């Protein structure tokens, strides 16, 4: 009983402590990204661009492939049922709406978490273990400005950009199945897609993707700064970073889906 109470208490305290740390990190990041530059403190733009290339451009092959396949899978699954009603042209509606609203942002975010969220944690964690973070502090260089802000900006651009491309690729996947396998007319498929989609679907997807970017970056950075001990600590926090990040992405997804229902 004492053990149980102690465990609950400790977990709660740890959770509160983590929440407080994340809040401080958030305020700090926003401060150094949006407020301090106005006061003449620069942003490390070159580093941000390098990170954008790493997070966004280099992840496109795998994100593109996966999104194309998901488009194909969705269309194939839908084709069977819809064919019974002779309504195969509605594959376009299904693929279009679910890509834009849900699957393209979600898949992109999950893939970028696995690829770059983990990399952020590992990089910051290794720097912490090697006293490099301390070195920054002693030199009077703010680690948030120096390490977090470029990643934050890069992520904030990379995820929405990748999401737009994923949406197109996913719809293209559906198109390929419908036109070349199911036999829907190409013109009908395109018309049907354009008719089905509204601006709201696109906006929903984009809003989600921006919030996913924020989650990926902050969880990655937070876990990185939490690393204690040596290489083992880096490994543990990297795993935890991906798991936590995916959990929060789905949670945020749920919230926005409810809000935009």
């Amino acid at each position, binding site marked *: 009983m004492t053990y149980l109470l102690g465990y609950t208490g400790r977990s709660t305290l740890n959770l509160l402590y983590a929440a407080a740390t994340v809040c401080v990190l958030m305020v700090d990041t926003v401060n150094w990204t949006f407020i301090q530059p106005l006061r003449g403190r620069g942003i490390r733009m070159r580093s941000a661009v390098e990170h954008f290339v790493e997070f966004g451009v280099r992840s496109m092959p795998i994100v593109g492939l996966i999104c194309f396949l998901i488009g194909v899978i969705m269309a194939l699954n839908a084709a069977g049922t819809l064919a019974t009603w002779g309504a195969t042209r509605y594959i376009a509606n299904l693929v279009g709406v679910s890509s834009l609203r849900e699957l393209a942002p979600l898949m992109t975010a999950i893939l970028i978490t696995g690829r770059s969220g983990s990399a952020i944690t590992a990089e910051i964690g290794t720097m912490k273990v*090697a006293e490099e973070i*301390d*070195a920054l502090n002693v030199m009077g260089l703010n680690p948030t400005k120096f390490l977090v802000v470029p990643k934050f900006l890069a992520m904030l651009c990379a995820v929405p950009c990748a999401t737009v491309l994923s949406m197109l690729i996913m719809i293209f996947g559906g198109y390929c199945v419908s036109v070349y396998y199911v036999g829907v007319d190409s013109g009908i498929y395109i018309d049907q897609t354009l008719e089905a989609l509204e601006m709201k679907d696109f906006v929903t997807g984009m809003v989600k993707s921006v919030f996913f970017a924020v989650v990926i970056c902050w969880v990655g950075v937070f876990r990185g700064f939490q690393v204690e001990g040596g290489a083992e600590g880096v490994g543990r926090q990297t795993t935890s970073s991906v798991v936590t990040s995916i959990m929060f992405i789905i949670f945020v997804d749920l919230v926005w889906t409810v809000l935009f229902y």
Partner: protein
Amino acid sequence: MTQAATAQPEPPKADDYIIQVRDLVVKYGERTVLDGINLDVKRGEVFVILGGSGCGKSTLLRNLVGLMRPHSGTILIDGKDFTAMNDEERIEIRRRLGMCFQGSALFNSMTIGDNVALPLREHTRLEASTIDIMTKIKLELVGLGGFDEYMPSQLSGGMKKRAGLARAMAMDPDIIFYDEPSAGLDPIVAAGLDSLIRKMQHTFNLTSVVVTHEMESVKLIADRVVMLLKGRVVGLGTLDELRQNDHPFVQQFFAREPDDESTGNANYLESLTA
């Protein structure tokens, strides 16, 4: 460079203290790591913090450079209270401090040259070509001329420490802190580093604070020594003064005698749980 090289440094004035630590108490949670430390570092001397493993010497150093905030007590750097400053003021003071880390802490993603140039690029508005020249001078100073295009992973342990020193020297600091400079180095390389510490102090009249447990290098470099045991000062003074100290731990340390195995381990465990 503002500090011109002089052949002979002026001897430190008797009461010109650059660092003054008063009643410093540091705790990790409930555990007291430093318990009422008082010490003064004179301008231009090599001051060594000596002690066994786990006595709090690294913690003391982290407090002196402001990486940790103490539980109570004050640290005056050039007469200004470092512990009571806001972030802006701390950054100002930190530009006058340099630190050499135990593992050198060079940024592995940058070349040696970029590592040394980084503080100059971030803190000054100098031309790129000027920074380039200053970087080369600093690297030359530590005996790494021509290494600016190398990555840290390509250098040996001793060279990394030299590069770390060059980076710490980049902003022409007043005080330089060394965390275990000879740890993990062979005696020849370690001796080279010791003479480099001396050279820096001579050339720039630099105040140096060195944390170590190597008696050999203490004999070579130290002007004054403080000896810590379980978070308290047990001896303070020149090496000769310390030899006269009759505290059993000081005598044991100088004689390089082992602890009685059973009590030694028990003491260590006690220090963890106390």
